[in-house]
């Protein structure tokens, strides 16, 4: 069964065709990084316009790349939230047009659930539950217990900045440009992670996250150091602080909620320091660690298509053309139907 995935929740327009939820037939991405770089971050209205420019050419290129026709697509899975509303709407509208014209199922997909799916897709296998999940990106940091498809218990989420957002803001402050995560990682390679003392926010206080204090502390370090600031050391110190904060909470959760599987996903999961610390924790605790390769950590439609396949297999009410895009949509919350299907 071929599932078309559409992802447009932020600044990447992506389309993919995935077979039986585990085999990527084709995956394309139109990145807006260069467009947003001059603004120092994603501008929602600009992002929406770029999605509209990209989506129709991508549909054509995708079919050509996969050597498939539209009629060979069995279902359409689209990210319907959470994300930038105007950006989401472009993907949702295009996906609905395809589903309606071809009379194929339209499967609304939660962006963060799809990120977790990427870990299993990368391993070429169906999702296995339960697992402890951590999704960390530019807009999100969520820790949860996944008990099944659309069955999640959120343990904690960020109260303010997400880690990717923190990296973007600090990178902009020290002139590394956008996006901040890859730039900070690159600078940190030869840096001393112990050079600058940065806080590990809320490290022993539950599973919630807060990175705005770390941002303020980092800016204070930058200001205090002045010309003597070592960018390499600062980036290494910051990256280490973020990774330790995240992994210490994951470690605590694994004690309170013993589980044999740990999934870490989202754009920040591409960070090498976080991956290294996660690998050490998993080995020490004897749990299986699943982290997608960096190409599947960032936003992509293959994870959406894969999750659409398994969602459609598990839920009979998942086909609806009357679902709306939602900027805010908590994991595990019911689908935002406008008309509940009978």
């Amino acid at each position, binding site marked *: 069964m071929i599932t078309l995935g559409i992802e447009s929740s932020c600044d990447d327009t992506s389309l993919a065709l995935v077979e039986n939820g585990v085999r990527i037939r084709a995956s394309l991405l139109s990145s807006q990084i260069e467009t947003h770089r001059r603004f120092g971050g994603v501008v929602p209205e600009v992002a929406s316009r770029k999605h*509209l420019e990209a*989506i129709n050419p991508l549909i054509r290129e995708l079919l050509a790349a996969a050597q498939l026709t*539209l009629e060979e697509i069995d279902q359409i899975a689209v990210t319907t939230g959470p994300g930038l509303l105007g950006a989401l709407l472009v993907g949702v509208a295009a996906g609905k047009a395809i589903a309606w*014209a071809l009379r194929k199922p339209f499967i609304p997909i939660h962006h963060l659930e799809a990120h977790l799916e990427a870990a299993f897709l990368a391993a070429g296998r169906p999702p296995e539950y339960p697992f402890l999940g951590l999704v960390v990106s530019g807009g999100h940091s969520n820790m949860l217990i996944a008990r099944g498809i659309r069955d999640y218990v959120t343990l904690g989420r960020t109260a303010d900045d997400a880690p990717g957002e923190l990296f973007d803001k600090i990178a902009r402050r020290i002139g590394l440009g956008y996006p901040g995560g890859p730039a900070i990682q690159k600078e940190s390679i030869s840096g001393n992670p112990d050079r600058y003392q940065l806080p590990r926010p809320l490290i022993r206080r539950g599973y919630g996250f807060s990175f705005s204090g770390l941002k303020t502390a980092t800016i204070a370090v930058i200001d205090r150091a002045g010309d003597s600031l070592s960018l390499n050391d600062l980036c290494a110190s910051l990256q280490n602080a973020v990774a330790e904060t995240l992994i210490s909470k994951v470690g605590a959760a694994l004690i309170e909620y013993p589980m044999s599987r740990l999934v870490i996903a989202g754009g920040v999961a591409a960070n090498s320091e976080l991956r290294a610390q996660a690998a050490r924790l998993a080995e020490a605790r004897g749990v299986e660690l699943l982290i997608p390769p960096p190409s599947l950590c960032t936003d992509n439609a293959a994870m959406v298509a894969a999750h659409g396949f398994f969602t459609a297999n598990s839920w009979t009410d998942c086909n609806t053309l009357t679902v709306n895009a939602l900027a805010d949509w908590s994991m595990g919350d019911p689908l935002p139907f406008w008309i509940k299907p009978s």
Partner: protein
Amino acid sequence: MTKSARALPYIFLDASRPRIVGQVGFAASDPNSGSPTFRAFSWESRQDFAARLTVFLDEMLVATNLTFEHIERIGVGIGPGSLTGVRTAVAFLRTLSQVSGKPLSGISLFDWAIATLAASGERGPIRISVPALRDKVFALDIDSDLEATSHMGSSVEERLTLVARSDAGDGRPHFGIWYGDSIIRTVDPSPEALHHLMTQHNSATAHDDFELLLQIAPLYVIPPLAEINLVKRG
């Protein structure tokens, strides 16, 4: 009614304004039947336009005893107007055109209003405008005969000027699209004018060629604030 009496059916959707407008029409109609050649629809727009996209189309098709297979041409309002509404409608109908192979027409509010004025006997030259911020309007001056003016589509943004709402220009009649005051006369784009654009001028505006299809895009009259600030900062 026979198929020949209801030839070349089109379906149109516009989300540029607070009320969503739809229309189904036929290029040819049986003169003896007395049936209207088009049927106009409108819906209250809430925050759920994207949720109801296919509901709108289904409702129009059911009401006119058609299926999408009967439709031979699609139309979409390209604004200016609600950025999100127009963009969502264009994304939906442009993709529908792409996957169905049915040609798409992009109808600007300016074309639609000008066709409305022409049908009411108005002659050029005129000034026609939409509201902008702070007592200003985006104005388009039409020098030629209105009947000859159409299909400005993608070039209309370059021809717009930002002027004070009180600026009467060179004295030509000034029409505001869906707004007016003591100087500016209101023009309400009509279903009849839309039908005229969708049928009489369809050969010039409807595209099934992919590259031309991509040119059917929202009229972004106002650039994003971030771009304005970026230009200001140099």
